């Protein structure tokens, strides 16, 4: 889920560090392992911009490393499918969707950083169906937090947790934010 980085604007609001770089990197590699062990056939990985795309790329690299498979990689921007603009902010930047392969018949692993209300994933599913008919779609996320508004659950997640009222989970990734880690931040 994409949220304004409160902890960058107001450093004193950062409540606590949930996961440091080493644990994040290691746990995400475990996810790659579990995906390959479950079913390596006809895989495709699609990351939801932004941050889901970086995590997706890391998964693809790790899968190649442990199994030698070249899994097709795609990136999805779901802003044109959203129904929840109130939680994002004024005009979201529409980034480019890039899915250069046919997803029909593939076992798609959809990737995002935090699963919260489920509306982002709902939008992503709608978008994917317009691209073709995958054999299956499974969801891999870093954090599975509470607060679901739709019946959507992850197939793979690094950590499941409940978050306090007025707090959000913020994920920072090196490629985008220059640093790495998961934090709980107060929004009020």
């Amino acid at each position, binding site marked *: 889920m994409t*949220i*304004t980085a409160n902890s960058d604007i107001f450093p004193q609001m950062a409540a606590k560090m949930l996961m440091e770089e080493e644990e994040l990197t290691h746990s995400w590699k475990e996810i790659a392992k579990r995906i390959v062990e479950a079913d390596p056939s006809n895989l495709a990985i699609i990351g939801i911009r932004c941050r889901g795309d970086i995590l997706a790329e890391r998964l693809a690299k790790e899968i190649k490393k442990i199994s030698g498979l070249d899994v097709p990689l795609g990136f999805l*921007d779901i802003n*044109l*499918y*959203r*129904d929840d*603009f*109130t*939680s*994002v*902010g*004024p*005009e*979201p*930047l*529409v*980034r*480019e*969707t*890039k899915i250069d392969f046919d997803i029909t018949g593939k076992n798609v692993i959809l990737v995002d950083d935090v699963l919260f209300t489920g509306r982002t994933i709902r939008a992503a599913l*709608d*978008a994917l169906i*317009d*691209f*073709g008919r995958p054999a299956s779609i499974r969801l891999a996320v870093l954090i599975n937090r509470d607060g679901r508004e739709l019946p959507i659950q992850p197939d793979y997640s690094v950590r499941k947790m409940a978050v306090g009222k007025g707090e959000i989970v913020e994920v920072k990734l090196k490629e985008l934010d220059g640093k790495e880690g998961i934090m709980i931040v107060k*929004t009020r």
Partner: protein
Amino acid sequence: MNWKRKDLLGIEELTQGEIIHILDASVSFKEILKRPIKKVPTLRGKTIVNFFFEPSTRTRISFELAEKRLSADTVNFSTDGSSVQKNETLLDTALNVEAMKIDAAVVRHSGAGVPHMLAKKLSVPVINAGDGAHEHPTQALLDMFTIREMKGRLENLKVAIIGDVRFSRVARSNIWGLTKMGAKVHIVAPPTFIPPYLENLNIKICHSLDDVIKDMDVLMALRIQTERHLPSPLRRQSGSGASETMLRQAGLPRLAEDGEAGKSSFFPSAREYRRFFGITMDRLKKAKKDVLAMHPGPINRGVEMDPEVADSKHSVILEQVTNGVAVRMAVLYVLLGPHTKDFGVGARRQE
């Protein structure tokens, strides 16, 4: 940045940031045109009326496609077969249609300032699809998008705008846009086609294409706007005075007879125009190897541009048309997208 305007009426009032905002958004929308299902649900439930009081192929179909690809409902209005023929005024036409609860109006008219007047009277966003010889903002945006896509940038590029600048809204919008984006604009036209006051803008004016063609990165040819030229005093248009007045009241242009350029007194003949200002294969040999040849359409093949040039590898004319749909999708998204409902234009949300 956040788009704050209710309407898109021209390029003159836009900032460089606003132009870049739309060009950047257009990249994402262009990708949608490559999908098997070329649709996104973004403007689902919105109704857009295309008010075209002047003929159009490209712009009208382009807007209609852009609207449909965003899942909006479209209604096309053209003067033929409408109550304009019963002398209903422009304002009444627009207000009546607005009363049917539409969400946006795209307007093309032969009268300069018509979209601006409607924007004041209508509560919905108004997009200028061409007002007389004044502006054609979406055309300039798609031209700049095409150049930026092919050349990687607009800044410091040398762009020649060739031909009927005086009566061309495409020229005006492009002059505004390209200068704001830092390109070096060169107007190449016979003196009869140079409008007054151009020297107030920072652009070069030349009367010979051969003199400048070797330095240009982009050659933008304009159509000779015969329908906007006053008739030659030596010739009279056929038809009674009464029907001419009715045509003008209805906002319809007077069409030059036979489509032949020589009817007005701005240049001796189409042949002579081509000789001095036409983009020919011979002229292209003197130009840069990667020079772009552009034209907003419709082309008078063999006058502004030779057929071989229009079909050559220098020509990006068809790219312009493809990009037009993407750029118009971006404009519609920025003016009408679902984010505008919760925030109004320019509101900043605290969360």
